[in-house]
């Protein structure tokens, strides 16, 4: 079970979220100019790393906002959350000590308690 640190709402159960797959996959600028191979890469091919993965999540039953997350696909350790439209943080942090709860990275705007109004909660 993942405890996901929503940038707006703080740590919430995984069941409140939906997964959006790999982040930072731009729609091709000129789809009509792509070869079949290039188009297939956009449609069907995504990274599938064993380790740090950059992915999108949406807090479906909370604030209904999308955000990006760096997560280790082996340890399931969450290393950072950051807003949509922001580039991937340069270097992932070293894995946090296993405390049984999700950790947040430097790029995170995550509050630690749901009762505190988070910085960045209002645009």
């Amino acid at each position, binding site marked *: *079970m*993942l405890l996901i640190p929503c940038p707006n709402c703080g740590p919430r*159960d*995984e*069941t409140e979220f*939906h*997964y959006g*797959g790999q982040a930072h996959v731009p729609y091709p600028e000129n789809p009509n100019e792509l070869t*079949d*191979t290039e*188009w*297939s*890469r956009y*449609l*069907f*091919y*995504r990274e*599938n*790393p*064993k380790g740090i*993965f950059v*992915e999108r999540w949406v807090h479906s039953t909370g604030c209904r906002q999308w955000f990006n997350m760096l*997560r280790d*696909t*082996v*340890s*399931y350790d969450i290393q950072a959350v950051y807003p949509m439209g922001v580039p991937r943080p340069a270097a992932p942090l070293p894995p946090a000590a296993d405390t049984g709860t999700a950790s947040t990275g430097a790029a995170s705007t995550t509050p630690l308690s749901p009762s505190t109004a988070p910085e960045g909660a209002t645009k």
Partner: protein
Amino acid sequence: MSTQHLPEHPDFLWRNPEPKSSYDAVIVGGGGHGLATAYFLAKNHGMTNIAVLEKGWLAGGNMARNTTIIRSNYLWDESAAIYEHALKLWEILPEELEYDFLFSQRGVMNLAHTLGDVRESIRRVGANKLNGVDAEWLDPQQVKELCPILNIRDNIRYPVMGATYQPRAGIAKHDHVAWAFARKCDEMGVDIIQNCEVTGFLKDGERVVGVKTSRGTINTEKVGLCAAGHSSVLAEMAGFQLPIQSHPLQALVSELHEPVHPTVVMSNHVHVYVSQAHKGELVMGAGVDSYNGYGQRGSFHVIEQQMAAAVELFPIFARAHVLRTWGGIVDTTLDASPIVGLTPVENMFVNCGWGTGGFKGTPAAGMTFAHTVATGAPHKLNQPFSLERFETGALIDEHGAAAVAH
């Protein structure tokens, strides 16, 4: 319910040889598919100077973690052909391998819970019959007759509105299947090398010429990848990409019970599939977790939902205790069909993407993949399951006939 005794466990079934410096072919992955491939390479193509490399212990990945269901009631011609060929092989393999791995053709039911399910299921029964696959449509009363413990009352959230039924389908003892293949492979001279992790590939231009392993470098003319869950990792080592995402898939067993469940019941809609194993434990599987994962474990809410669905369908399970739960890593593709064929790397072949349904396909995967590795070209049964289909658009969409959504 079988009252057979399990076969006596012999002292050993295969040697544990040191890897040689060179083989005619190397199969990466010592699970069901890898062993079956090696078996058919030796038997059908006379290739016995080959090795199966397994990074852990033999059949300790998805072969140890699946729910052992075997069926061939897939919608499309291409799928029906390969899965039905697998089923026919399952029917003769105990004799051929001289090992009774308790293939029990107790039938498999796929429940329909909505009008959409009903239409889709009846369509699938028709398609199956046209392809020579045994298939029947059962109304709720017939469902009840075949499986008396099923709740067919209409006061549950997703009432049973009928089911497809494949009488020749069933279950087998997964460990014994692996051991049966391993023993025959070993007899024919195949080296099964455990604790041997592939760490890279040697290439001469675009051609693979060897495998780097945790136990040294092995030269080889051909490489077959059969490492479900880690296919993307191996492909990346070899310098190409696969349209695969790896997800956790979970299953569980109860403690042992008297025989209560005579068949196999699957429900795509409420995401549970149940059979009773030979020893008596109830074996249940769930859907995949939504996120990518290599952790061989999933989220508990998936198990919770699966249990809720099972108890609603089978009220008698309410007092059964969960003995253990576990997870495996499944390769999923966007069309829920496998990839068996050539890769961009010359002399390297891939068998992957079987999603949640690799076990049932084991014999046909082995037979067709062995053909592909030996001849350098696909067998007619696996030709449609090429990597190119993602470029040509000739997808084989089996989301409806796959056991669960993935």
